[in-house]
């Protein structure tokens, strides 16, 4: 698949300030400094892919999305979105992309969401028939039948987010940028949003780039980009991420309460209590003779072996970053 987004050596800094001391006089004397939001970012995103852009708060995810959508100018580097420079051809690109900014809604607060949808149909010149058909489709998938004609101010946060999504995709964009699209959305609605994304990708080869902290959102992405302090510290498939950071197994043991087995030499003890323990081990240990012998002892009532969850893998990734801040970029 050809790349629809190509980013080369993009950097962006902001001037910001902090007040270090307390008190009124200190508030008048601000210390300004330059914060590097992005440093030398290079990446490619192929057409029809779903890419999760992850990273901790303030890592530069939103800044990158805003540069890709032509909202912000980078200080240096080049960006190509569908072959065009997004800040020089913003208007042209805006017709072909959809953007959901979780922190800033598309919807008019005092009006029903339907008015915003109609507004979108005019600014994107959507044919009336197509508009009705697409609206019906998205309203159905996202379960908004009883919601979209109510004023936005009376909606829950989750309902607003779903309506924001609809407003941003009614023109069937080729690329959809979603900046934390599932803030405040309940579990079933999150699943519905993911279904909508997967359907659009299947039907129209829509490319999705989403920033998120939600593991289930990340799980639908075949590609993951991770930013840390403005640097791209991981770029690769989810499988690679699991391979690198998930090469561990969790062994849960249930044993006779009268015993207290020594487990520390098998791996990292995650928990050990009366009659129960869980340890993190290397996969090879499962073939180790001594370990198998231990599992067959009489005091072992039952055991379970499982892979690391994506949540655990991400936690490990963050732990790893904490150990070597600004760590070397791993590309795969």
């Amino acid at each position, binding site marked *: 698949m050809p790349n629809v987004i190509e980013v080369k050596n993009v950097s962006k800094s902001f001037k910001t300030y902090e007040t270090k001391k307390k008190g009124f006089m200190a508030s008048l004397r601000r210390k300004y400094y330059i914060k590097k939001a992005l440093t030398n970012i290079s990446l490619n995103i192929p057409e029809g892919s779903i890419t999760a852009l992850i990273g901790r708060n303030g890592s530069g995810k939103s800044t990158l999305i*805003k540069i890709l959508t032509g*909202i*912000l100018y980078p200080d240096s580097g080049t960006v190509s979105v569908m072959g065009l420079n997004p800040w020089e051809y913003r208007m042209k690109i*805006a017709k072909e992309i959809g953007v959901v900014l979780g*922190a800033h809604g598309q919807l*008019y607060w005092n*009006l029903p969401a339907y008015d915003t949808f109609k507004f979108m149909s*005019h600014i994107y*010149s959507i044919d009336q028939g197509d508009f009705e058909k697409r609206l019906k489709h998205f309203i159905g998938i996202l379960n908004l039948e009883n919601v979209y004609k109510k004023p936005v101010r009376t909606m829950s946060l989750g309902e607003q987010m779903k309506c924001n999504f609809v407003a*941003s995709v009614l023109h069937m964009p080729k690329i959809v940028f979603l900046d934390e699209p599932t803030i405040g959305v309940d579990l079933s609605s999150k699943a519905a949003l993911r279904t909508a994304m997967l359907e659009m990708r299947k039907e129209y080869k829509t490319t999705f780039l989403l920033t998120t902290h939600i593991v289930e959102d990340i799980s639908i992405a075949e590609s993951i980009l991770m930013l840390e302090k403005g640097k791209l510290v991981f770029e690769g498939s989810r499988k690679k991420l699991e391979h690198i950071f998930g090469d561990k197994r969790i062994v849960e043991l249930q044993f006779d309460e009268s015993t207290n087995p020594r487990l520390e030499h098998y791996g990292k003890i995650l928990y050990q209590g009366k009659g129960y323990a869980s340890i993190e081990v290397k996969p090879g240990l499962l073939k180790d003779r001594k370990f198998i012998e231990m599992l067959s002892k009489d005091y072992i009532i039952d055991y379970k072996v499982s892979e690391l969850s994506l949540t655990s893998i991400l936690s490990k990734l963050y732990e790893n970053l904490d150990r070597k801040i600004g760590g070397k970029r791993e590309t795969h």
Partner: protein
Amino acid sequence: MTGKSAGNVKLTSLVEPYLAVFSIGLKNTLAYKTDFVLSLFSSFFQAGLMIFIWTAIYDFTNTTSILGITLSTMYVYFFLLYAFRVVINFSVPEVMQEDIQNGSLAVAYTRPLKYPIQVFMSGLPDDALYAGIITIPLIIAALLLSHVLLTPLTIMLVISELLIGYTIVILIGFMIGMLAVKLTNIYGIMNSTWSVILLLGGGVLPLTLFPNAVYQILMLTPFPMLLYVPAATFLGMISTSVAIRSMFTGLFWIAVLLLVTIIAWRSVRKKITSAGG
């Protein structure tokens, strides 16, 4: 498709999105009808205050005319000023400041619309409503009160002057609004600029009451076109030739302000940051 109809289609597709901005802005304005109706009368009190002050001045000085302006002409002058001021307001910098402060600018930029036109079109519904509900009826009332006989030429002049004044205030507003990109909060600058515009535009007293040298200098600036020139043309306080000369001065300032705004916007655009992540 003929060249003409293809051109029409292109023009429609260019204009339609901005008409949609106007239309949804209108719905938004009318969402809170009570607030809208109350806001219609807020500047009425300011006009009333000016009439009260000038009545006191005429009474205190025991005069029937100040530099040829009678009290009844002064009443109609401020009556007209109120009618014009509800349309000629400073909404553009306020919208821009809000967009920058709450991050809505980022959303506006994701749409295939030119931001400056978007700002203008989103403020236009308010102005159009005020014009329809207040300005036009008040101008008719002023006509009846002042017994002024308006010729078609005077009507044309007043309408043209108001449109020029409206364009000038939009452009000044946009230039002030651009400061929000750097300063984020521009309430103080907005208020002081608006006060200066009102004073120099004849919103506090008719410009003929300034010393002649000051009056002559002021007539070379863009400000009299906002309020004084249309009101003075209406009341016959200035001749047709002065009115026409003022219009050309206004058009000259529109060209200057437009050029400066375009150049400044190209530079400011690159410095935009979006608040709130």
